[in-house]
């Protein structure tokens, strides 16, 4: 029998995440929106609220709760601030390759600090040549005196300026088929976060470029086998990364639904709330239908992942569906607001802007369809 319900404990984690988001994150949202930065307080809150420890095994100071709980937490945080959820999700994306491919020494060195939030992480794959084609990577490494020397530039990197630990994909200077991943620390000589991006949405989420100029990385910071870096980084992106984006999208859909219902019940036209007009009811119904379907897709993928099985295809389906649905939900919620949907004092304007950043992150919708079609045709 298929059980579509969350366990009592999962519901409690969900409630804890909701309380956390409403009390610890919400107060910071206005300043993040106004400045486009001001991320430091929420990063501290994510650590203090144990949000970065969710998928880290207990023996390394984590909670060992898995990907369904992580998705539930991201959903609740994104309901309040997609920008914060995005930084959390990519922080987890930096953690996962170390959990999955790290040596015992690497795990002991990095995971406890990442679990408490004392340190923050990211993954850096995308380059100016594009994120959809990771093999177009032009950041290179070469062996020199027992270490590795990296040169190159990465762009559109979430947490670029705040991550102390960055998992970086690079190409062997002497072998155009060999990619490797390395754990870089922000204090390393030759490593520098450079340009900060100003995005259409998710204001207050740190996104920018990093540069490596003759950056010397100790041999022990090679993550996973040499030459297998594509597998290391893509495993993390296709599972943890897409799972994270699904959580962000579901949270945004929920926020859109709540805002749409609130406005439709309060706005009086023709002597009655517009929620009694079928044209508005249908929009609310569509947002709700997509949210329900997206949750089923997302939770099924994360439950599969939690069983220790590969879930990349299921995540691709859910990532495509939920991020597209989030854009649709934001537009319909704004439409319900009429002229007020263009005024920044209403949160739906933020939701519309945020929704546009969901699509390209962790693989565009077109790339998701490529993956899904391969799955269907295989």
């Amino acid at each position, binding site marked *: 029998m298929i059980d579509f319900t969350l366990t*009592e*404990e999962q519901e*409690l*984690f969900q*409630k*804890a995440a909701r*309380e*956390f988001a409403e*009390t*610890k994150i919400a107060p910071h949202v206005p300043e993040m929106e106004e400045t486009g930065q001001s991320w430091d307080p929420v990063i501290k809150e994510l650590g203090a*609220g*144990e949000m970065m*420890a*969710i998928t880290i095994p207990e023996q390394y100071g984590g*909670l060992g*709760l898995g990907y369904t*709980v992580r998705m539930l937490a991201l959903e609740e945080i994104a309901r309040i601030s997609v920008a914060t959820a995005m930084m959390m999700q990519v922080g987890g994306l930096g953690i996962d390759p170390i959990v999955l491919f790290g040596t015992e020494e690497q795990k002991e060195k990095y995971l406890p600090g990442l679990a408490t939030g004392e340190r923050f992480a990211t993954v850096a794959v995308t380059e100016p040549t594009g994120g959809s084609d990771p093999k177009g990577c032009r950041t290179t490494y070469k062996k020199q005196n027992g270490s590795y020397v990296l040169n190159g530039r990465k762009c559109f990197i979430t947490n670029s300026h705040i991550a102390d630990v960055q998992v970086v994909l690079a190409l062997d200077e002497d072998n155009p088929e060999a990619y490797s991943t390395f754990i870089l620390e922000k204090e390393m000589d030759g490593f520098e976060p450079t340009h900060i991006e100003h995005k259409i949405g998710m204001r207050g989420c740190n996104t920018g470029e990093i540069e490596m100029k003759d950056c010397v990385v100790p041999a022990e910071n090679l993550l996973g086998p040499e030459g297998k870096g594509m597998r290391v980084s893509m495993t993390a992106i296709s599972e943890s990364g897409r799972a994270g984006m699904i959580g962000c999208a579901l949270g945004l859909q929920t926020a859109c639904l709540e805002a749409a219902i609130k406005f439709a019940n309060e706005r*009086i036209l023709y002597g009655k709330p517009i929620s009694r007009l079928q044209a508005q009811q249908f929009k609310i119904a569509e947002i709700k239908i997509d949210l329900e379907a997206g949750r089923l897709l997302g939770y099924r993928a994360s439950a599969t992942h939690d069983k220790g099985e590969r879930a990349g295809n299921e995540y691709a389906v859910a990532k495509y569906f939920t991020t597209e649905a989030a854009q649709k939900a934001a537009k319909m919620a704004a439409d319900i607001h009429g002229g007020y949907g263009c005024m920044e004092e209403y949160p739906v304007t933020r939701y519309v802007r945020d929704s546009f950043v969901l699509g390209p992150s962790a693989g565009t919708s077109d790339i998701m369809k490529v993956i899904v079609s391969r799955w269907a045709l295989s």
Partner: protein
Amino acid sequence: MLSIVVCVKAVPEPKAAEDLKIDPVTKAIPRHDIPLEINPLDRNALEAALHFKEQAGASITVISMGPPPAGDIVKECLALGSDEGILLSDPAFAGADALATAYTLAKAIEKLGEVDLVLCGRASSDGATEWVGPELSVFLDFPVVTMVREFIQFNGSSWQVKADIENGYRLVQVELPAIFTVTQDLNSPRTLSFSGIIQSRKKEITTWGLKDLALPANTVGLAGSPTIVSKLEYVESKRECEIIEGSLDEKLDQMIGKLVEAGAV
């Protein structure tokens, strides 16, 4: 080490307000099929208990009376840091007024043995009688201080508290064991934590019914409740828009007049 009992009530979540049904016979609000939460002021009471535990060590037992779904809020209290949770649940307890509730709670507290401190929220967000704390004091023969906003001295057996009264406060010295009902000004309740939820996996909830407390059926629930609720009805909120005409000064005078008339200023 202090032995603290915190009485918590499972009340309807505010967002469920529109789904509340009124029982046509008892005029009670059945709680078995609506989302419940910990009564907000009981969270202040629990927070105080957790503070005492962190300061000087204490064992905290949470007691709640309600239908089986109220067990979820007891579980939540365990996740927040309580050591033990007791759910008083029995069909015979249904429909209890404040007196029958206090009586049943008192019997459960007596069954626990020696208790130093009983903490309650000042009132529940649904019934809001504020009677359960004082009535517990009668049944347990403990002194009670209501509306406590600050624990000034809380070492030893004689405690000093600051408690609200109309337009001021009282400083009260009281000997333990005692009962305190608390206000929202006392503290800021902590939120649930993931590690707290994990730690609560090892904690069990004990359920006690009529037989466990060895009580006659006519002393509990609706049968043991002398309160008669003659009427309970839904309140419909209406909004009306009125356009005020005239010059700016006239509009302001009219508006201020209307606000004064409505008791808003």
